[in-house]
């Protein structure tokens, strides 16, 4: 049958780059947080050196994620309504609560790490890990529960988001540590062996992500006509470059080769490069999923173009990029400041809280200081 659309109202994109980077940032945050708990919860003492870096990064990234979300809502001053009128069926509503809980408990966790209180750090870590992972699974649900969006509506979505969160979080931590080692060599050294073993972890998660991608795509290819068309958007449509080349090749295959090759895998440069590529690939994945999902129209023919002119994004592309750069810049500055001033802030907080904290920190007298 030949159909032609004579007239229809075009419905454009809802969410652009800002919301694309929301799961990107929360993913990085959840990943680096999980890594920081390795030393305390899973008793992998060799990872202790990176715990502080990782937890600060997790907090800063979470703040960045919240900023993207706030910037994207059109009435940000009404955000308090999420606490006044919670909706148990809404994954966005859950997100506000889980993110708040996550922020709170990661702050407490960071405080215990910096005061060297291993026991409480472990308890907080155990409480926090499910919350951190929950944040991300919830983000997956925010997209995966929309039954009108063919590309999003799959049970794999939360798992996919969770795994890519861990992948990108680990990768970003490697990048940060490598940069720190290269450019600030006079600071405390991180044992290269640790970075390499984190690299091995990265390989594991990369392979897992690959597997999930393949499962998702294969199922879609064999599904109803709409799903087939949706997945063809990735394989041969306008997103094929971003999907095949950036997400799969640059963000997956090349890092895997670099990491698993005995020569390149055991150098700082190789590790850093591979990890940076993984971070780029993960951003491409978020873009492909979130923007790609919206490019499948619900009632029109053809594809929705990726343009900010029609639709409800509310910003132009330039504005979005500028906002995003501002948020990333904030993140970098905040991270550097946090690295520098957190010990001071922690002692200040200690002073305010008074006895209790001092007591506990004298019980375990700075076991952390290597």
């Amino acid at each position, binding site marked *: *049958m*030949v*159909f*032609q*659309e*004579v*007239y*229809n*109202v075009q*419905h454009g994109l*809802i*969410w652009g780059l800002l919301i694309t980077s929301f799961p990107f940032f929360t993913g990085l945050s959840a990943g680096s947080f999980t890594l920081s708990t390795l030393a305390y919860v899973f008793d992998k003492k060799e990872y202790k050196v990176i715990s502080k870096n990782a937890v600060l990064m997790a907090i800063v990234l979470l703040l960045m994620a919240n900023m993207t979300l706030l910037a*994207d*809502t*059109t*009435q*940000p001053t*009404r*955000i308090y*309504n*999420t606490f*006044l*009128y*919670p*909706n148990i*069926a*809404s*994954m*966005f*509503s859950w*997100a*506000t609560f889980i993110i708040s809980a996550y922020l709170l408990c990661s702050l407490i966790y960071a405080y215990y790490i910096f005061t060297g209180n291993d026991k409480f750090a472990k308890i907080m870590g155990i409480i926090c890990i499910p919350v951190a992972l929950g944040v991300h699974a919830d983000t997956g649900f*925010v*997209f995966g*529960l*929309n*039954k*009108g*969006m063919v590309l999003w509506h799959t049970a794999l979505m939360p798992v996919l988001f969770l795994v890519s969160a861990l992948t990108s979080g680990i990768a970003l931590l490697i990048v940060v540590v490598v940069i720190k080692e290269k450019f600030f060599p006079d600071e405390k050294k991180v044992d290269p062996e640790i970075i390499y073993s984190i690299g091995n972890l990265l390989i594991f998660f990369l392979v897992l992500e690959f597997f999930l991608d393949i499962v998702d795509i294969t199922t879609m290819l064999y599904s109803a*006509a*709409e799903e087939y*068309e949706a997945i063809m958007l990735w394989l041969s449509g306008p997103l094929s470059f971003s999907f095949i080349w950036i997400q799969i090749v640059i963000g997956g295959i090349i890092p895997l080769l670099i990491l698993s090759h005995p020569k390149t895998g055991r150098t700082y440069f190789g590790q850093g490069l591979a990890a940076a590529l993984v971070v780029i690939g993960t951003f491409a994945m978020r873009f492909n999923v979130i923007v790609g999902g*919206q490019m*499948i*129209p*619900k*009632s*029109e*023919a*053809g594809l929705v173009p990726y343009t900010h002119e*029609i639709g*409800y994004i*509310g910003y132009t592309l330039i504005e979005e990029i500028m906002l995003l750069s501002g948020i990333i810049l904030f993140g970098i500055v905040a991270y550097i400041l946090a690295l520098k001033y957190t010990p001071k802030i922690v002692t200040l907080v200690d002073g305010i809280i008074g006895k209790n904290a001092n007591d506990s920190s004298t019980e375990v007298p700075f076991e952390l200081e290597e």
Partner: protein
Amino acid sequence: MGKKKLDRINENWGPKYSRPEFRHGEPDKKYAMVIDLRKCVGCHACSIACKQENEVPLKHYRSWVKKIEKGTYPNVKTFNLPRLCNQCDRPPCVLACPVRASFKREDGITLVDFNRCMGCKACIAACPYNARFMNEGPYTNHDPEHTEYKDTADKCSFCAHRVDNGALPACVLSCMTKARVFGDMNDPNSEVSKLIHLYPTQLIKAGLGTEPKVFYIDADTSIMGRVQEEKR
């Protein structure tokens, strides 16, 4: 519609969407619409009437007419499909709203509380029918105090401000062939009930289980959802 009725509309339609009586509607009613496509000529009068009635800004539509051409010469025909919010009985948009700004009244009308909506767009993503949009405003939405709303989600309200006062929705009134029929589904003698029971009806994307309350008569199901366009 007489002047008296208009006055009553303006009196009763409170400034606050959150007013309790407004949030509930009449419990024993269930509003529905039947669109008889055998009568529809595709004149777009309903789109215009809706725009005027509800101050819908440029580039957005609460109600519009989709036109699809099917076939090749000489066997070709244009199909019209007037579209609006389906006022689903199990609305995904209400489930998605994090602040319960989208809500369902007991009479079956799904509405947006403009005072509460924070513009997260979750409902737009959730609606499988493209019924929602972001309204940049400013719009007063028949608020007697002329409060100006802006930047919230918006959608077809079945003209709840008119229906609550006994008037018909603007699109129904404007339809020159009376293709659009509006009424109470719970009342067995209403015109909608009769049409629904007498004729085979179609729903858009019925498989999604949203239970739409806009019924079509004589619609081509292949053009109701996403159109798989093929260029000639």
